[in-house]
């Protein structure tokens, strides 16, 4: 039996075509009926135009695109012999703003998508205050972002060599206050306990707040152990808080851009991505596994890469990032330079790669520049890793995870645990 299902309520639209056998999902084809041609638009433009155009790929992870884009230029300049060494201040500010964006996206995913969809599965209509909670928390955290970046979405404050802003202590205090307020929201609403208590918790069942609602519902709907895929993870983005590497039965920190392959898929405007010809999962769960987060590793022993651990990893990351952001602000030395590349070369040649961890996983930009103009620009988004239909040899990560689901509704929840975004996937 074949069933077509449309996924909306994401940035754009996706179409899932389920193939059922004996009442269980046997195969899923995922397609995205949407295309803008951003890479084609970037060709032949001034190298620096990428910094303004690529964020507009996505209204949710636009800041990650900006950072990937500036890193691609910096990486290319470095390889061309123009050394760029960012100050710790510039690094910290970029890390802070990027973390804000990841946290805000996790809030929206939890309150606007994951929790309502799961409640819906049980016939409960979404309580209205979820919209307000999502709105309140995400508004305040991107406000902290905008103090340094000027606006969100679509800021362009990162420039080769650093950042353009020169924050004062007053700006930092304002941002700290916002991070504290959002942390209080997390304690009161999301986990129902203090962060200290949370870190002492050894069991998911001890967690309270809205987070307990989602775990209770997952248990009630018997969905905790569904959604298992290949149990392969990869992290490319270099950050102070995340580690790069891959996991496929065993860990390896030795990963290379050269092993990444993009492939055109039939019936979809999104390309699939593989590493050494295999599908890998990216995102918060991958980051937690590669960073050897104790709690997540314990869960992993029991549940492997199931929906439960995928949901938990995203929420746990929200808390960790908030703590990290606080320490970044506390240690920021405003006396350092914001930007160290005083003179941007005009007609330069560069071939660089910029890798960043965005909310949904590793985001990669590659730019080949000649005479200061873009010859070729390639964007590989996190959702391409997770949501493609896969290769001839194996189904994509999310497609594999949906196999064995008992209904379309259950399968789409599994799909949602990857945090879907179609505008990034196709770009």
């Amino acid at each position, binding site marked *: 039996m074949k069933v077509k299902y*449309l996924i909306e309520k994401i940035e754009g639209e996706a179409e899932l075509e389920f193939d059922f056998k004996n009442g269980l999902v046997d195969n899923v084809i995922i397609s995205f009926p949407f295309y*803008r041609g951003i890479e084609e638009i970037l060709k032949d433009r001034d190298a*620096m135009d990428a910094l303004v155009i690529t964020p507009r790929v996505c209204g949710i992870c636009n800041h990650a695109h900006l950072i990937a884009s500036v890193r691609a230029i910096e990486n290319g300049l470095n390889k061309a012999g123009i050394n760029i060494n960012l100050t710790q201040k510039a690094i910290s500010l970029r890390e802070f703003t990027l973390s804000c964006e990841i946290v805000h996206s996790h809030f929206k995913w939890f309150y606007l998508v994951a929790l309502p969809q799961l409640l819906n599965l049980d016939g409960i*209509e979404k309580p209205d205050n979820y919209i307000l909670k999502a709105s309140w928390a995400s508004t305040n955290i991107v406000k902290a972002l905008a103090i*340094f970046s*000027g606006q969100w979405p679509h800021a362009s404050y990162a420039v080769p*060599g650093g950042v353009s802003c020169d924050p004062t202590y007053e700006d930092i205090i304002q941002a700290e206050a916002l991070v504290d307020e959002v942390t209080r929201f997390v304690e009161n609403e999301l986990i129902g306990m203090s962060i200290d208590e949370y870190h002492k918790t050894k069991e998911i069942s001890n967690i309270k707040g809205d987070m307990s609602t989602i775990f209770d519902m997952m248990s009630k709907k018997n969905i905790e152990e569904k959604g298992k895929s290949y149990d392969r993870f990869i992290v490319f983005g270099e950050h102070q808080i995340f580690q790069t590497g891959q996991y496929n039965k065993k860990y390896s920190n030795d990963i290379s851009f050269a092993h990444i392959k993009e492939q055109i898929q039939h019936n979809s405007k999104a390309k699939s991505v593989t590493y050494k010809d295999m599908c890998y999962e990216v995102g918060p769960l991958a980051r937690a596994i590669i960073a050897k987060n104790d709690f997540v590793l314990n869960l992993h022993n029991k549940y492997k890469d199931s929906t439960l651990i995928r949901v938990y990893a995203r929420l746990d990351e929200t808390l960790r990032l908030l703590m990290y952001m606080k320490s970044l602000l506390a240690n920021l030395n405003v006396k350092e330079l*914001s930007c160290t590349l005083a003179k941007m070369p005009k007609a330069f040649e560069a071939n660089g790669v910029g890798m960043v961890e965005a909310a949904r996983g590793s985001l990669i930009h590659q730019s080949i520049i000649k005479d200061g103009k873009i010859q070729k620009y390639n964007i590989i988004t996190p959702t391409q890793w997770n949501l493609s239909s896969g290769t001839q040899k194996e189904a994509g990560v999310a497609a594999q995870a949906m196999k064995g689901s008992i209904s379309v509704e259950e399968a789409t929840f599994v799909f949602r645990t990857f945090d879907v975004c179609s*505008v990034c996937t196709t770009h």
Partner: protein
Amino acid sequence: MNDYSFTKKECDMGKDTMESVKKLFTTQSAKVDTNRGGEYYTDLYETCRKRLDELKALPVVNNKLDFQQTIMDEGLDRRDFLKWASATTAMLMLPASFTPLVAEAAQVMNRVPVIWIELSDCAGNSEALLRSDGPKIDKIVLDIISLEFHETLQAAAGHQAEKQLEEAIEHFKGKYLLFVEGAVPLGMDGQYGTIGAKAETFKDHLLRLASGAAAVIAVGSCATYGGIPAAAPNPTQSVGVMDVVSGKPIINIPACPANPANMVGVVLHYVLTGKIPELDSLLRPKFAFGYRIHDNCERRAHFDAGEYVEEWGDNGAKNNFCLYKMGCKGPMTFNNCSIVRYNEAVNWPIGVGRGCIGCSEPDFWDKYAYERPMANANIKAPTGGVEKTVDEFGLALLTAAGIGIGIHAVASAVAGKKNSEKDA
């Protein structure tokens, strides 16, 4: 020594037209009529009064969130609310006596059905509008406007959502405001973007929904002018809403993303008066797009003094000097960012030393893109005076201002050179 060496011709041009530069920056840049006389406002007041009474008598379209309750939930008291109402009244260029009416209008906004669709977009305007931006009360007002259909916010999904949309357009035929986010791809018979189970093209979807709307509001630069998808070589042959829809009032709220304050302003204006606000020749509401960023920029004094940032991170940057030479497009960009700012007014691009990219102007991605200062940009002068408003001249003014400013920067560079010669 900076990078911008000017040719002799450019310098001569600067000298020749200093008079016109002076004129450009001393005349009122946009002809927005903020005082239409007592009689006009008395009439308007009565019209609004009647309109609000009519709306109040109507049933609430969507009473999911009660306005008063929401205000209390957010910890805002009536004083904050009235403060917001008076600021919004001023933004809409109405006399202070309209403040109570604006406050009332905010409370009956859930009588006007709104349908929001996304076409070829990045959803950045939805993000800005619904969840992440806007002064606090604007945000609440937007939480409670009767969003009959918005795919991200509604409870329904998939086929159920499609059904909900069909019901809404039938039920509110001729009454709903249609907000459109995203460009309309026309290439490959519209196959670059389709929607729903029947794979309706974005163009057909838009035309069908527009035909039953009271007015169509294009939000963001993609819906307005085609935006980034329409950037050269425009792979999907994308265009804006006004290139496709005819026979309906269209309001453009450009910028990338559009400022939520301006979206609220348009809805409030419609609720209050039953009419769309006064528009310029590019169909932009004058209350928001009547002035240039440059006119109210916090760094304007440095422009006038000829103090510029010359490189990222230089002394000029540390002292918040003017970003014009770094490619700031504030002087050619009509928008109210310098007043309303972004993200609950916490900051804006010029505030972080990045400069304006002109994201609310047509073709900004091709014509204005990035940090090519206008003095070096290939922009032609219009025929006619440089102080024409956008209404009289459309795009021409933008280019005129560009030349004018190019001249100003050249002149300041020349002046600077003379000074240093004297010093030496």
